[in-house]
Each structure stands twice: as structure tokens, then as C-alpha cells.
């Protein structure tokens, strides 16, 4: 007896989404609690409505003397505990069945009212609202959505180090590592917009041309599309202002900052800003990046040199050709900030290189050519950190201890990502 009912109750919960793996967890979501509460409320409201129906069916509306007498008689009837215990449990509430029942009931009530009081309950015009001449007509608006479609190019740093001039592959540039950006494909945006718009009326149309949505829509439809675009922009709009600084930091000075190096507080920022006592600012830059885009900063010198000799043997006699390469020296920082808006952090992937060519560059003679064999002092670091937006962090580098040679290069990279609010596209 109880099994079918239990099964019916379970079916209701399944259809409402209140069972399954997520519901098995102890920590019920607020949305799950709200849904259970709504189910109980709907059941109460349904039962209230059905009580009126029962009263109507008995022909004894509230206030009627006969009903009052029947009620008084029932009130004075002794209560039998055994009867209450034997009473069968109420059937499980089925919102879909209840709704169907009430819809049918409403139609019947409305029909009877139209028959009893046609002046107060005239027939309802069920014409398609689309064909209603009084409905607002569709108007054309051009909505700029280029900001949602843009996929920025990566700005890869120049190669550094001696090997860089001899080979195309750079120190930072791992093969296949490319920014995917946050831009939508045009077709996907149109699909989403049509989905949000719902069924278009005969005078409505929506298409993408040249980074703009050409939307001929009625106001209600246009509002739905505008809402969708706002939702898309909220999760992916805006640029990132990335402040990149390079410090020469003494190990003792870093010791005081170590505990909060991943998210520097005001006192630590003030300590860095003050400088001195083991803190020296080598460079400071602001660079603007799209979310997920690789950008770089390079301040230094570039020089070409006779790096190698290659043999050309396409003719009968081999010929020697000089190979001229380029050395980039100075400070090169390449960074890719990726914003996690839900958690308010930017994951900043950074590569830093600080290099200096030792002068003079030694040479050696091969046949009739003077080969240059440069020597480069270099410090380079790669690091990734999850930095709270608006806060600074020391991501990595080599600290100065005083034990290294005077000419050794030491540097630590500091980053501070900030989200700059994007300019929403405007319809016109």
C-alpha cells in the first residue's frame, strides 16, 4: 500500500530535481530548500481551492444555516483516537496532476460564469497576440558586439639569451601555447541571441554583420536580447591593467615580506615603495592586456653580430657565408593574466629575463671571417601565481645575498593586476 505512494512521491521529487547525486549531499543548497518550501506552499494553496469546490458541490456555502448546523454537530461529536490512527495517510502531492485538475476546473468555472453573468464575464479573445494590431511593432537597432567577439593576438616577447639569435624558437614560447581569449564565435553569439529572443514574430529578424547585431525586434524581444548581452559582458568584459615591477631585493628585506608575498598588504607595499635597505626598484611598467592575452615589456638594447658561418654547397665548390644573429639584452617580461571573476583573482603567468652582454665581445678568426663569441650575464625566472585583483604579489626571482659576484644579476618580479571595467556595446 505504501510502496506505490512512496514511489509517486519519489517521482515528484525526481521531476522537480530534488533528488539525485547533488541532493544526497548533506549541505543542501538554498535553492533546494526554497523549492521544497514552494512545493509545500503550492500544495496548501491547491487544497484551499479544492475545499471551496467541495463546499460548492455540497451546495452549502459558508454562512448557510444548514452548513452551520452540520458544522456544530460535527464539533460536538466525540473524537475517537482509534479512528485518527486508522486514517490512511494523504496521497502524495503531484503538482503536475494538481495543475491539470485546476486548469480544467478553471475552464469549467469560467464557462459557467460566462453563462450566468455574461456582462461581467465576456468571452475571452484568444487570438494570437502576434497578430494584435495594437502590439508595438519591431524596430531596427544596431548593437555593437565587437567586444564580445574579439580574440586578441598574443604579443610574444622577443627572444633572449644567446641561443635565441640562432634559432627561431624563443625562451618563453612553448610550442602550441596560444591565447584562446574570451571572444565568442560569431555564429555562437547569434545562436545564443536567437535562443534568448524566443520565437520571432513575422516582422522580427536578427543577424550579425561586421561585428554588429542587426536586430529588428519588438521591445519585449529586444529586452531579452539586451539582457543576454549584458550577461555575456558581465562574465568576460573589461581589460586588465597589469603593473609589472622588477626589484633587486636583498634576502633580508624579502624575509620581512615572505609571509604575504603572494598578496602584499599596505605595509608591505609601503616598504617596497620606500626603497632602500635592501630594496631597489629596477623597472616599473603598466601594460594593458585582454583577459588571457600574452603581453610583454622589453626595455634594453638589441645588437647584431657575426654569430656563425654556414657552408653553401649548392655549387661545385663549397662557399662560406656569414650568419648574422641578434642579441636582445636588458629586461624582458612576458605575462599572461587570466581573470577568475568568481573568486576575484587573476592567475598571472610570467616569464622574466634580465641580461647584459659583457663587453668587449671576444672574436676568433675562421678562414677569413671574424666570428664574435659574446658572453651574456643573465637571470631568468618563470612563475605563476593566483593574485587577488588589485593586490600586488612577488612572484619569483633571485635574491641578493651579498655572497654572489658583484656583477651577478639578481631580480624579483612584482605584479599587480587590476580589472578595468569594459565599455558595454551600445544599441542605437
Amino acid at each position, binding site marked *: 500500500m505504501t510502496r506505490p505512494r512512496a514511489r509517486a512521491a519519489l517521482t515528484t521529487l525526481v521531476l522537480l530535481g530534488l533528488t539525485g547525486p547533488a541532493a544526497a549531499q548533506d549541505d543542501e543548497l538554498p535553492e533546494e530548500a526554497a523549492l521544497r518550501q514552494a512545493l509545500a506552499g503550492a500544495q496548501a494553496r491547491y487544497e484551499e481551492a479544492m475545499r471551496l469546490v467541495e463546499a460548492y458541490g455540497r451546495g452549502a456555502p459558508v454562512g448557510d444555516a444548514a452548513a452551520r448546523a452540520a458544522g456544530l454537530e460535527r464539533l460536538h461529536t466525540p473524537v475517537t483516537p482509534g479512528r485518527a490512527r486508522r486514517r490512511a495517510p494523504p496521497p502524495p502531492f503531484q503538482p503536475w496532476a494538481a495543475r491539470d485538475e485546476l486548469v480544467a476546473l478553471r475552464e469549467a468555472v469560467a464557462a459557467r460564469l460566462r453563462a450566468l453573468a455574461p456582462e461581467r464575464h465576456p468571452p475571452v479573445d484568444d487570438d494570437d497576440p502576434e497578430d494584435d494590431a495594437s502590439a508595438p511593432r519591431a524596430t531596427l537597432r544596431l548593437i555593437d558586439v565587437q567586444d564580445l567577439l574579439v580574440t586578441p593576438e598574443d604579443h610574444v616577447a622577443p627572444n633572449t639569451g*644567446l641561443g635565441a639569435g*640562432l634559432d627561431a624558437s624563443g625562451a618563453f614560447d612553448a610550442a602550441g601555447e596560444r591565447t584562446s581569449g574570451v571572444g565568442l564565435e560569431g555564429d555562437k553569439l547569434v545562436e545564443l541571441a536567437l535562443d534568448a529572443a524566443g520565437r520571432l514574430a513575422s516582422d522580427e529578424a536578427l543577424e550579425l554583420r561586421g561585428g554588429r547585431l542587426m536586430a529588428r525586434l519588438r521591445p519585449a524581444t529586444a529586452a531579452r536580447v539586451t539582457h543576454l548581452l549584458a550577461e555575456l559582458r558581465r562574465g568576460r568584459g573589461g581589460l586588465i591593467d597589469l603593473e609589472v615591477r622588477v626589484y633587486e631585493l636583498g634576502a633580508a628585506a624579502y624575509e620581512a615580506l615572505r609571509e604575504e608575498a603572494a598578496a602584499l598588504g599596505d605595509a608591505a607595499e609601503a616598504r617596497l615603495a620606500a626603497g632602500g635597505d635592501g630594496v631597489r626598484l629596477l623597472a616599473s611598467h603598466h601594460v594593458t592586456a585582454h583577459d588571457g592575452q600574452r603581453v610583454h615589456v622589453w626595455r634594453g638594447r638589441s645588437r647584431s653580430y657575426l654569430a656563425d658561418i654556414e657552408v653553401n654547397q649548392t655549387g661545385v665548390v663549397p662557399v662560406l657565408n656569414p650568419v648574422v644573429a641578434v642579441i636582445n639584452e636588458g629586461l624582458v617580461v612576458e605575462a599572461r593574466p587570466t581573470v577568475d571573476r568568481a573568486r576575484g583573482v587573476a592567475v598571472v603567468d610570467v616569464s622574466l629575463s634580465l641580461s647584459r652582454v659583457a663587453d668587449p665581445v671576444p672574436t676568433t678568426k675562421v678562414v677569413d671571417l671574424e666570428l664574435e663569441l659574446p658572453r651574456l650575464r643573465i637571470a631568468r625566472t618563470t612563475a605563476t601565481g593566483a593574485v587577488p585583483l588589485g593586490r600586488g604579489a612577488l612572484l619569483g626571482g633571485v635574491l641578493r645575498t651579498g655572497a654572489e659576484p658583484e656583477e651577478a644579476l639578481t631580480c624579483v618580479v612584482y605584479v599587480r593586476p587590476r580589472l578595468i571595467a569594459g565599455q558595454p556595446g551600445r544599441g542605437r
Partner: protein
Amino acid sequence: MNALLRSTFAPLALVLAAAAGASAQDPAAREVAELEAMLARVDAALADLDALARPRFSFAQYDARHLLQRPPDRVAPSLWVPSEAAGFRAARGGGGAGAFCFDSCEADTGAALEPDELEQLAVRAVGEDAWDEPACIEVHRGFLLVRQTPLGHARIRRLLDDLARPATRAVQLDVGFYHLPPPLERDLREAALAAGGVLDPALLARLDGAVRAGAARLTGSATLSALSEQRVYLHQGDERAYVADYERSSGGTGMVAETVPDPIVEVLRAGLALEVRPTVVDADAGGPRVALDVRFARSTPLTFVDRQTPWGVLTTPRVSMDSVRTSAQVPGGAGVLVFAARGTEDDGTSDVVIVVRPRVVGR
């Protein structure tokens, strides 16, 4: 609350008003009043049931790039003397696999999800039977595009929170290179042995105190941060180009023959390099631990000997090399003794003790 009172008592008031007036009316008017009251009550119940039986679906996008695209591993340059055995011309191109680097064939252990996997996880989190039209889900360029009920969205948010927490967890690594007096070095090694390789905060404080007091010397120090399971590196030192060898090419006719030398220019990298892959391991108690995979190399050029050949001068470098690869697991806030070695004058090496202190940030 007001809405609840209004929805509960308004139909009741209507019923009572209709009933009060009905006694003075004819039966038809009384029935109309009764039916109107019933209609109001039915409409109120239908409004509630519509919300349940026909839940509202809405669109939302979720940024899942941190789950789908992990920052790449960064491989340190080789500090080995370039040779046939170590990968000839391996130094070219800045990166290059060599004796220092992780094996090139080593599988990438990045924990990024495939888009299909993420989609399946989201479908299961909401409930597999909750995806009838108009519900839909798709991964597009790192974003999860979802049309679902408020409850479905809440479950997806919870799933993504659970997945993203470890994906954006970073590890800060502070590395110290020390020259220690033998008794302190011995104490450190014995303490580390007794504690499974771990240097507890008290021992680290003793080490720092010895440095401050001048009893020990900090010869190098570095800091690095990486996401869990990501490989990062630092390199400090020199790069020096030299002619390592010559290849000869010849050609000509029966009358003329020409032989030319093709110099092979190599780059010797020296100095200090450290490559680390930290992995956060959630222990049951005592907070997260960090599993470290560490490679350290220190190369010091000793001599560059120029040798005369018929085609020109070639150079043969000689370097001293310390190289170690090790693994350890330590609780955050503690340290690990990665390497300890005594140098000798014969081979030009020097004393070094390397201590790494990992700290989990962004929990």
C-alpha cells in the same frame, strides 16, 4: 511576508464578502459570487503550481578556463656542457632538453579537464534527467554556456567552485643555498632523517638564527611560485658562445678541389638553475602537504682551453657541476633539505646545502 499574507487572506476575504452578500441575493447572484471566489482561489493556486510545474530556465555562462587550460610547464635550460652525449647543439633555442631537464618523453601531468569531461560532470551534478528542452549545456572557448533552472545553476556553481579551488591554488617556494658549519649541517641532516626529510619550523628558525649570527652563510636565495602540478624554473648565471668543433665540407672537379671548415658554435650555460614541480596534496588532518619534484644544477666554468687546429681555434670548456634530482613531501610552513654536499679543492666544487620551504597560498 506581506505577499504571503495577501495571497492567503485575500481569497478568504473574497469568499466571506461573497457569502455575506449572498444571503440577500437571489440564488443565481449567490452562485456567481461563489464561483468568482472559487476562480480567484484557483488562480492563486495555479500561479504557485505554474512556478513548480513549469520552472523558469535562464541562461548563464561560467568561466571554466582555469579548469580547461593550465599554465604550461616551463623547462629550465640545460647547464650541461654541450656534447654528442648530452644532445649536441641542444643549447640552441633557449630551452632545449639536456641532462638538467626533465625527460622530454615524460608525460605532462597537468590536471586540465577535457571540455567533454567538464560537460559530463556538470550534467551529472544537475541530474541527468534534468536536461530536457529548453535546458542545454555547451563548452565554448573555455566558457560553460548553460540554460537551466535556478536550482540547476546553483548546482553547477557548486561543482565549479569545488573544481576551481584546487586548480587556482598556488605554492610559494622559498629556496636557500647555505654554507653551513659541519655540526649544524649534521644536526639538520639528522633532524631531517628523523622527521621523514622534513625540517620543522623550529629547525628552520635555528637555521635562520645561525645565518643572522654569522655562524652560517646564505650564499644564494630565490623565490618561485607555481600552480599545483606546474613546473617552473629559475636560472642565474652566464651564457657564453664558443667554437666547439669544426665540420669540413669539400667539393670541386677533377681539376679543382676545395675543403672548407664549418665551425660549430655552441653556447655554454653556467650558474645556478632550479626546476621545481610542487603538487598540493590534501592530507586528512594537519592541512595540505606539498609534494616537491626538484631539480637543481650548479655549473661553474673552470677553464676554457683554446686548441689550435688547421681550420682555426676550437675551445674545450671544463666546468664543475653539482646536479641533483629529488622528491619530497612536506607540510606547508615546514622545509625540506633537498641537497647537502661538501666541496673539494681537487674538483673545484664548494659546500652547499639547499633548503626549500613551500607554502600553499590561495586555499
